[in-house]
């Protein structure tokens, strides 16, 4: 047990140490300060700007920024949709795969362009190397960069600066952050044993029976893998994702993947601190999220470590729950990976979340509901500040002034946007489709488990889509040619789009409005938002708002299941 906890603690320490240098570097990149990579990348960026017809990068207004996000994303989605639908005619298709069904392709494209990577297919038997490496791999970078650009625009607006230029930030996010780190990471992964090849699968006779042939899928995995983690994408090259030995062969690659998932969402909070010139506030917010994160790890780890009471009764002693886990990672690495991947909206998995103990499952669901336990690439940080604004509004009145955040008044427009963003999108995109699916469960759901666990599976699928996470509880018949696949593909697509673009529009408008407000000076009568007290209050608001919305489904899903298994809580 101790070894497991030490593994977790050391990993978290590495992440903590990485935050200031990476966060500082990102602040320099996005504030246009000099960095060491300038000489290398400025000519490349100039070329991109010229080819892209972006000319000089002028600051955009809120709606210009939103249009740029939406149109660029739409254009990329159409491009990749075409590549996928015509993959049979295109090169780099050694296994001769044809077109997938239209709904699978549509769901895949929406899922990848929204940085979600929910997969209703098995990668190795559905998409060619070209579709995966160039089509989906392309979206790995651009969808992550979209999130990061929006986050930077949001931070700029919040701190009273113009929003900036979407295309400029988008390009910088790729050339200065995602691409350099991915290059280094991919080389390490190759060295650690991850394949990177365009060769066709290897066909070998099996050890048990030499007459049986087995095809072992390969592919250009390493470069795909690193950006999958770094960009919080999470879509696996193979169906079993990071549990597959070619995606995640050993402890070193597992560590690298966890660090890659955490690197940018954690560092962005520090980046904010530099932009706001208030590192104290940034560290306090960081500490708050870290606290919730540790709490999640703690609950899930204890649940997994104690194991399943029914199984323990058979084995005659306590054993960790290893169902659905890779033995090479064990309970500790699986729990840390699962909590991190659901918290950061990465969605890669190295263990089956479906097989977690009910309370472990409840923690993962909670991460998806809250979206701020680090949160998605960029959007998570922005959500965090939306929560702060909401906390300022609810509690700030109690100091007897119109609530202010960072010297700007929180008025009707801000309340409309933040409450829509934080409070309303998720219930609409998760609870309503889940209720429809379960009301007609025979026709629509196709769950492997009835009862409480079935409910958890359905809720998880929509929560994963709406939060742009992409991991699955699985156990749902959501892949073609299952009869329920069409419903799943289309209904989750709606949740994916709603969960991605409505908040993004709201965030940009919020930041735009804030940046235009005249700043109000700080006095003794101003509610300080960089105190432990206020950050503590914010944590309370986050947990209460989250609990109020999702306590009933947690009660009817994982909590009821926990009681059913008999272990109690």
């Amino acid at each position, binding site marked *: 047990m101790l070894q497991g906890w030490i593994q977790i603690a050391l990993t978290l320490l590495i992440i903590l140490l990485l935050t200031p240098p990476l966060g500082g570097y990102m602040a320099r990149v996005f504030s246009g300060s000099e960095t060491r990579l300038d000489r290398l990348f400025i000519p490349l960026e100039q070329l991109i700007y010229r080819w892209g017809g972006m000319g000089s990068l002028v600051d955009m207004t809120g709606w210009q920024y939103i249009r740029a996000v939406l149109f660029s994303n739409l254009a990329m989605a159409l491009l990749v949709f075409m590549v996928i639908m015509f993959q049979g005619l295109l090169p780099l298709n050694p296994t001769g795969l044809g077109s997938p069904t239209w709904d699978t392709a549509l769901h895949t494209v929406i899922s990848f362009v929204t940085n979600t990577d929910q997969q209703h297919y098995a990668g190795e038997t559905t998409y060619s190397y070209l579709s995966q490496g160039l089509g989906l791999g392309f979206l790995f970078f651009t969808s992550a960069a979209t999130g990061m650009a929006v986050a930077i625009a949001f931070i700029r607006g919040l701190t009273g600066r113009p929003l900036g230029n979407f295309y400029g930030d988008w390009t910088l996010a790729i050339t200065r952050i995602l691409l350099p780190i991915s290059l280094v990471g991919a080389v390490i992964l190759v060295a650690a044993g991850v394949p990177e090849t365009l060769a066709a699968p290897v066909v070998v006779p099996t050890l048990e029976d030499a007459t049986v042939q087995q095809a072992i899928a390969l592919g250009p995995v390493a470069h795909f893998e690193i950006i999958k983690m770094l960009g919080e994408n999470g879509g696996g090259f193979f169906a079993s994702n990071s549990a597959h030995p070619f995606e995640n062969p050993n402890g070193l690659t597992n560590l690298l993947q966890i660090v890659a998932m955490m690197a940018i969402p954690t560092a962005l909070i520090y980046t904010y601190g530099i932009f706001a010139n208030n590192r104290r506030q940034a560290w306090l917010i960081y500490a708050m999220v870290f606290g919730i994160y540790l709490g999640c790890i703690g609950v899930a780890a204890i649940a997994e470590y104690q194991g399943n009471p029914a199984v323990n009764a058979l084995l005659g002693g306590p054993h960790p729950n290893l169902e659905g886990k890779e033995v090479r990672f064990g309970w500790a690495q699986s729990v840390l990976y699962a909590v991190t991947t659901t918290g950061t909206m990465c969605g890669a998995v190295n263990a089956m979340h479906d097989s977690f103990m009910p309370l472990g499952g409840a923690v993962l669901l909670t991460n998806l509901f809250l979206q701020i336990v680090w949160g998605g690439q960029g959007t998570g940080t922005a959500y965090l500040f939306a929560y702060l604004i909401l906390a300022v509004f609810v509690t700030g009145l109690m100091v007897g002034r119109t609530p202010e955040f960072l010297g700007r008044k929180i008025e009707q427009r801000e309340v409309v946007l933040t409450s829509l963003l934080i409070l309303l999108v998720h219930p609409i995109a998760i609870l309503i489709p889940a209720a429809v699916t379960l009301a007609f469960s025979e026709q629509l759901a196709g769950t492997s488990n009835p009862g409480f666990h079935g409910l958890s599976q359905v809720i998880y699928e929509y929560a994963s889509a709406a939060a742009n996470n992409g991991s699955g509880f699985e156990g749902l018949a959501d892949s073609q040619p299952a009869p329920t696949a069409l419903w799943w593909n289309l209904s989750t697509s709606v949740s994916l789009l709603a969960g991605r673009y409505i908040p993004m529009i709201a965030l940009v408008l919020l930041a735009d409005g804030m940046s235009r407000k005249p700043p*109000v000076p700080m006095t003794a009568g101003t509610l300080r938002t960089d105190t432990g007290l206020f950050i503590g209050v914010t944590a309370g608001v986050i947990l209460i708002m989250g609990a109020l919305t999702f306590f009933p489904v947690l009660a009817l899903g994982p909590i009821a299941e926990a009681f059913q298994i008999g272990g109690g809580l």
Partner: protein
Amino acid sequence: MNRTTKRRRDRKHTPKVEMAGLYQRAIQDAFHKLDPRIAVRNPVMFLVWVGTVVTALVTLDPNLFGTVAAPPNPQRVLNGSITVILFFTVWFANFAEAVAEGRGKAQADSLRATRSDTMARKVLPDGSTQSLPSTALRRGEQVKVMAGEMVPADGEVVAGLASVDESAITGESAPVLKQPGTDIASSVTGGTRVISDELLIRVTADPGQGFIDRMIALVEGAERRKTPNEIALTVLLTVLTQVFLIVVATMLPLATYVKTPTTIAILISLLVALIPTTIGGLLSAIGIAGMDRVAQFNVIATSGRAVEACGDVNTLVLDKTGTITLGNRLAEEFIPVDGHGLGDLAQVALASSIFDETPEGRSIGQLAERLGATLEFNRATVEGVEFSARTRMSGIDLADGRQIRKGAVDAIKGFVRSRGGHLTPELDTAYEKVSKLGGTPLAVCQDGEVYGVIYLKDRVKPGIKERFDQLRRMGVRTIMLTGDNRITAAVIAQEAGVDDFIAEATPEDKIEVIRREQSQGKLVAMTGDGTNDAPALAQANVGLAMNSGTQAAKEAANMVDLDSDPTKLIDLVTIGKQLLITRGALTTFSIANDIAKYFAIIPTIFSAAGIGALNVMGLKSPQSAILSALIYNALIIPTLIPLALKGVQFRPLTADQLLRRNILIYGLGGVMAPFLAIKLIDWVIPIP
């Protein structure tokens, strides 16, 4: 004790407003507000009202929305009980609003009493007069008001000289002299009575547009427009309501899927328990009560927005005289010069002041008498010399030809020189000494001989320093404006504890300092009464005009103080803050309550799902749990009505201290209170 504070204290004991019958009327009004057309204005409570109708239907037929497994009769009893409680939830919210409005109406009635329809004598262009009701008057028209008549509308005196009884509005019984041209005395308010002589008045406000009319509309609540902050809060409450609507509506298929079906009535109960009914029901009462508190203070606000802005004020710009210091200066010390004794100086000073009826003059006489001076001549034989702005001296001419003068040091120097007198540096030394102490020096002479200097001292209002300390703790800066020189101003500023001061200030300086503060993003409040204050009053975010001031000042301000007490600006800051705090505290309380309600209802209604262990309160049964939570939810509204009307007690603390305190009371208290209360209700109600 000065007159104003005494008057304010008296008012506390004898409320102007008649409260009898208030509650009977509110009880009736609460029923009238059930009209869906009125109810729909409050989305949160309207949803409860709709829920009441639905539960009433399932009381009549429990199987109306699909067959319910349970036997119909116990179902009917439960649904019926839920219906009754929901009805009272809505009714209590209506009652809260009705009480607040009732108090406002009573306040308005007492204001309106001054507004009773009078007949006005309109002056036609040809000079003849026409009699018509005051409501038919229009802005710009002229009316003639004779002794014994009411002034029919707000206006400005064009001609005539008359004394006017303004006690109906200000409570001040002494009549006020009104005449044209002068800054202060030329404006009249509708509803006041001319006691002597007659006035020609130009009407400055259409009927229904005067200050009092605007205030009546505000306190009555009917015309009340929601303030920006109230609108923002309503948005949040509406979104929360929508969230819970989705949560509860989707629970029906989810619960059915896990084979723990529930009923419509129970889900409606859960919904009502969760949506923020406490703050939703009390929100408008809080707003109306806030306006009412301003009105009780005898201040007329032209909008709720202005009252809210008071809470946000960063800087107060205050006139020294009347606000920080008492209006008059008193003699503090005599400083003899040129070898004269203190007794001699007192003697001359007394003689110089025998005709001076100003407070300053009287105080000089009193000080001289205390020092043993007596009049050594017959009053009737001497001739008084009045103070004039040109000579800046006053005094007496004795029968024997001696001339005694007191006045500004420069003026006396001139007088002495003209009499061939001799000036020594000692006079300048005394002058400087007094100036450094922050006083006003007056020189005294007899013919060509200077006797000494009188030190007149400005008296800072008692308790003002403590109030500025409080303001500073709340983050409000104070800036004093005065016509005094720098040295004097600095001493007073120090003594009163203001943060900054502007000496030798002109009216232009006033607007300048407001602009400067506003350019830093600050909200500025100020008081003023003169016509030349009008631009500054308009520029300030909160402009409080004195009722005794000119019409122009009152037009430019967004509040008018009927008692003409500039110190009230400080109280208004407190009222504004209190309004916001009350709203925030009850919102936090309302949301924090939901945790306990969840723990009461969810485990018991879904106990079939095996989550009964979450029933941490150990409630008796699902029926009892639901009814207990709903009863709590309904009763908390009337319980909090007094708090909503009175406002959360305000303490002058920093924002952080206030947050800590209020989070503890309303946040943590809001989490804990319902656990105890629901358990208690569950224990009391006779349901198995």
